[in-house]
């Protein structure tokens, strides 16, 4: 088990390193921050002075090595555009982002799982068919389209919900719906399929032959087995949640990390961009790692063979 975890950990570090390297090079190929910051243009001397101030005058490999040294000491540098520590920028913006992610995840679990379960258990009735119909629509509509439709209906025509900003809980309703709709649908559809598979398994028949109440047959024997692959899917879909949150935050003009990250891309604010990439990559890696760990908890067959 320990060797398994160590191997996973090593691969995770490699992944983050590779992502950082690609970002580092790609950002520098695509342009210099000062061309975007000062759009009236700079003289040769001004440009050279700024480059020197932020260490951009040195060759890329040297920059990369000294950057690695910096972040090893926990120093992620200063924003070129705002001249403030990168970590402060993100720390100020992380609140709304975390709240949106947590709400979306909660909505996914709290709506997606019951929806999938209902669809499986009531598959012969109108209710089950309706549940799958709703899920299918949620699955098929992309984030940006759903966001615009919601804004049109609830902000523009009905004027019920604010469409810009992240100050009150009201501001979170439409972004949460937008971000979680696809996930809810995916989880519901997946759980339904798994449940239907599990319900026809021999061990469910055994559970019934034991005379267990149907609630136990479903809740204890069937759902636990059906959830194992669903956990994997949740983990995979989390990556979609990360990238989706960037789009959703932009559409709803959230004061979150998405805005800072997108801004850093537009301005080629290297330190901000790099930190964002590291943070996103780490989040994905850590979540996938947790999913693996959780998998071992729910499925004894994984636990022993690791």
């Amino acid at each position: 088990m320990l060797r398994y975890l160590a191997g996973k950990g090593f691969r995770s570090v490699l992944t983050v390193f590779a992502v950082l390297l690609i970002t580092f090079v790609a950002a520098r190929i695509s342009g210099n921050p000062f061309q975007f910051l000062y759009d009236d243009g700079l003289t040769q001397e001004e440009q050279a002075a700024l480059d020197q101030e932020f260490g951009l005058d040195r060759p890329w490999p040297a920059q990369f090595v000294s950057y690695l040294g910096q972040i090893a000491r926990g120093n992620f540098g200063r924003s070129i555009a705002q001249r403030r520590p990168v970590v402060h920028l993100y720390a100020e913006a992380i609140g709304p982002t975390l709240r949106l992610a947590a709400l979306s995840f909660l909505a996914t679990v709290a709506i997606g799982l019951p929806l999938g379960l209902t669809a499986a258990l009531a598959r012969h009735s109108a209710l089950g068919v309706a549940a799958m119909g709703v899920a299918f629509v949620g699955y098929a509509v992309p984030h940006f389209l759903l966001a615009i439709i919601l804004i049109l209906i609830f902000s523009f025509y009905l004027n019920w919900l604010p469409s810009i900003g992240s100050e009150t809980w009201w501001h979170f309703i439409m972004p949460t719906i937008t971000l979680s709709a696809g996930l809810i649908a995916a989880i519901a559809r997946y759980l339904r399929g798994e449940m239907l598979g599990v319900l026809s398994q021999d061990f469910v028949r055994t559970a019934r032959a034991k005379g267990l109440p149907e609630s136990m047959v479903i809740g204890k024997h069937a759902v636990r087995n059906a959830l194992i692959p669903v956990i994997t899917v949740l983990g995979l879909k989390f990556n979609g949640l990360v990238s989706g949150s960037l789009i959703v935050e932009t559409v709803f003009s959230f004061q979150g990390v998405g805005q800072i990250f997108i801004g850093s891309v537009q301005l080629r604010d290297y330190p901000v961009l790099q930190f964002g990439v590291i943070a996103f990559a780490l989040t994905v890696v850590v979540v996938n790692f947790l999913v693996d760990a959780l998998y071992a908890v729910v499925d004894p067959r994984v636990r022993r063979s690791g």
Partner: protein
Amino acid sequence: MTAPPLLQLRDLSVDFSTDMGIVHAVDRVSFDIGTDEIVALVGESGSGKSVIAQAIMGLLGVGGAGRNARTSGQLRFRGRDGAAIDLLTLDAEERRRLRGRDIGMVFQEPMTALNPVLTVGEQIAELLRVHAGLTRAQAAAEAVARLAEVGIAAPAERAKSYPHQMSGGMRQRVLIAIAMACQPLLLIADEPTTALDVTVQAQILELMRTLKRRTRMSVLFITHDFGIVAELADRVVVLYAGRMVEEGSATDIFASPRHPYTEGLLGAVPRLDLASDTIGAVAILPGTAPDPLAFPAGCRFHPRCTHARPGLCDGKAPAMTALAGARRFACHVRASA
């Protein structure tokens, strides 16, 4: 056998309505299972023997499986209080409470019949909590005792194991422990040894014999293997295409089968006591089992029967002919012989 029978099947019929038509999977089957008796229910696959087992268990129409099943007739069951009740008149909740407590069942596939994510101890213990009202600790301790009873070594450690850590034979022992956990009056064993290799098969049969002797429960043993019938059964019921064709004590049936189908089945048993050069001469029943959507008219066996007489066997279904010693068979030709 003076004690009244534990279970009396009377005209039990099960129909399935499918997209292709109605399947009469079980057609007016009547026989008794006595107290402390092992009855073997014998037939080819598709003969309706597993459907009878599920009808007795009340598993038809539970959950998704058998939603389209219609059961009629009577299943008179003598409960622990000695009063006979027709199982088919009970509601779903009453039947559930009988399952696992008064009627236990062992299935054919030990590899898949246990829940992969629960320890085997828990899979026995939960049953004791539900039916006997034991506490968590009591039920766990009792589960270990049950594992010991079915011959599992180091039962306390084994109770913490998961099914995938056990062999097929061990899993079948666990399934027997589950079926026996509440000391049922009737144990239904649906081909419990078919998926196991021969040496393990013998061990499992020996275990069932021992448990039966100790608890004096009744057993309905479903099989297509007359070798097992000879080893285990007191009485035999032979089923063909959903109908009973013959019934009698195991001794009588082996000594003098009356129905041509029973004869054919007995001829198809490989005999180890015959010289090796005759092994190739094992008799095989000609033809295949009929399509359940279109069973032949008259005697359902007549298209495969070497004794069939046109105008007689393809006319109306043969009635049961009763003989001395509770023997019965359904054959036009032999009844008139």
